[in-house]
């Protein structure tokens, strides 16, 4: 156990491992995160593959006479009220859940990071305005905001995306602001000023990159919770409209048949749960990997 190596050699061993590499190394040690990543990769692969396997018009939204068939070898997850294969729809539908949540998180991220960075960096009036309005949005349950927006603008995927990105944005604004405020007070920012770097370079090169860790964690967790929000909205009838094989919409469809055809509810729900679980596992893994407290 006790190897006879000098300090110099020891240092050389760890030489040149950036924080990102360090994080990755720790992430790869985390079983949960690996499971999560593998699941997500498989899911993405499956949904891409489903594009080639199935024909949207006939297999995904088309009609068939094999209605309400329970799970079988032929229809793994059974069929629904218009005879569509639920397995096909679940696999194919992954793209909607993923795209909507990733999309809205991305929009929310951009808006939230900009607002949060401005508020956190400049403080004062900007901070007040941003944070007050953020508080307002924050105090109304997200789902209400989303329901209002979607039902006002009409039920469509784009509106859903918009509605969901608002709640993402509030979250990201908060976290970015808090991060920026912490980082702004760090000595290396002052050091950068002392080196003569202009403000914009400092924000870009030093503040933003150092804010990223919790934001990255937040992104994964957000995508997960947004999948749930999106499906909740579809379930309430204000999300993605019905024939689209979005998981929440499928659940909403299946709800009426829960007794006779429980599988119609079961599988889309399981799909949501497992995907979110995978994202949460990954998020938790990332959090642990990035957490400076555990670094010691």
């Amino acid at each position, binding site marked *: 156990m006790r190897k006879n190596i000098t300090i110099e050699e020891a240092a050389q061993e760890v030489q040149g491992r950036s924080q990102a590499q360090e994080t990755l190394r720790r992430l790869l040690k985390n079983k949960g995160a690996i499971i999560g990543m593998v699941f997500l990769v498989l899911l993405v692969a499956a949904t891409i593959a489903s594009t080639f396997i199935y024909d949207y018009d006939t297999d995904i939204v088309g009609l068939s006479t094999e209605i309400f068939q329970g799970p079988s070898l032929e229809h793994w997850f059974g069929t629904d009220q218009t005879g569509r294969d639920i397995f096909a729809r679940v696999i194919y539908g992954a793209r909607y859940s993923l795209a909507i949540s990733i999309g809205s998180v991305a929009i929310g991220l951009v808006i939230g990071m900009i607002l949060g960075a401005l508020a956190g960096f400049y403080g004062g009036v900007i901070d007040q305005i941003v944070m*007050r*309005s953020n*508080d*307002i949005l*924050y*105090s*109304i*349950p*997200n*789902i*209400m905001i989303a*329901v*209002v*927006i979607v*039902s*006002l603008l009409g039920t469509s995927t784009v509106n859903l995306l918009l509605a969901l990105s608002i709640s993402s944005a509030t979250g990201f604004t908060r976290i970015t602001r808090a991060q920026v405020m912490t980082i702004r007070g760090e000595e290396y920012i002052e050091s950068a000023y002392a080196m003569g770097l202009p403000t914009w370079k400092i924000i870009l090169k030093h503040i933003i990159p150092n804010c990223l860790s919790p934001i990255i964690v937040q992104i994964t967790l957000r995508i*997960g919770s947004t999948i*749930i929000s999106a*499906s*909740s909205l579809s*379930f*309430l*009838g*204000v999300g993605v409209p019905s024939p689209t094989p979005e998981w*929440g919409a499928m*659940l909403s469809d299946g*709800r009426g048949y*829960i*007794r006779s055809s*429980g599988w119609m*509810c*079961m599988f889309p*729900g399981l799909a*949501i*749960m*497992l995907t*979110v*679980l995978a994202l*949460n*596992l990954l998020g*938790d893994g990332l959090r642990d990997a990035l957490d400076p*407290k555990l670094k010691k």
Partner: protein
Amino acid sequence: MIRYIIKRLLLMIPTLLVTSLLIFWAMDLAGGDPVQQILPENATVEQQEALRESMGLNDPFLTRYFRYVGGIITGDMGTSWKSGLDVFDTFMGRLPKTLLLGGTALIFACLISIPLGVYTAIHQNSWKDTAGMVFALFGVSMPNFWLGLMFILLFSLKLGWLPSGGTGGIEYLIMPAATVGLSLAALLTRTTRSAMLDVIRQDYMTTAKAKGASRNRVIYQHGLRNAMIPIVTAIGMQFSFVMTGSVLAETVFAWPGIGRLIVDAINKRDTPTVTGSIILCCVMMALINLATDIVYAFCDPRIKAQYSNKR
């Protein structure tokens, strides 16, 4: 402290004005001609026009808005286009139901999550911790309306133990509250655990141990009281989650609370109900936030001091 509370209450006014303006504006944009809803389909154009005029719908936006705000000040939030009932009364009539559901869920969640969170934290990295965390992870990953549906499938349809929806005795409350409560419990377990883990690493915990305090005393007297601060924050933040959860649980279990009131009203374009209810919701949330902050101050004297300092 009292001054702080008063200041916060006063601060709510502009916030609510802005909020109500936004909602009023949004609902205005949405259209939803009340005349269509109030009158039978075959009403004459003259009747429609007369109704519009009498409801003041032909006035400019701001006039209507200020009339509305004026109404609120005198305690009149308008009447529903759909049911003709007073919006405030309707909301208040529904509120106890939601509070009952949300409150039960929250208590249920706290009863599970705080002991579990503490337990997992003090057994960090053991199999007990892992098991607790897997539970919590599943809990947060599950859409709670789906959980509700699965409950119905199991307990109402397969086993016939519990009613599938509606209100009445305690048996009606169990499934909705468990649905909201479980997800919440999962969330709070995670918060409690990480708060507790943070606290466990603190020096004052070692100080307490070094005094000779027993393990339980250290954990509950010193640890939990400090961990309560982030937990209270989390609970405060989760009220909005409770509301969201309630909207869904109310839909799944036909529970007549405010969540469903609002969703139904939105679906029916019942503008006065939507506007009024959302404003009241905001008031409620603001009050809850204030209450959270006050509870906070009792958990943490440093924050109490801050409140007294802020003039």
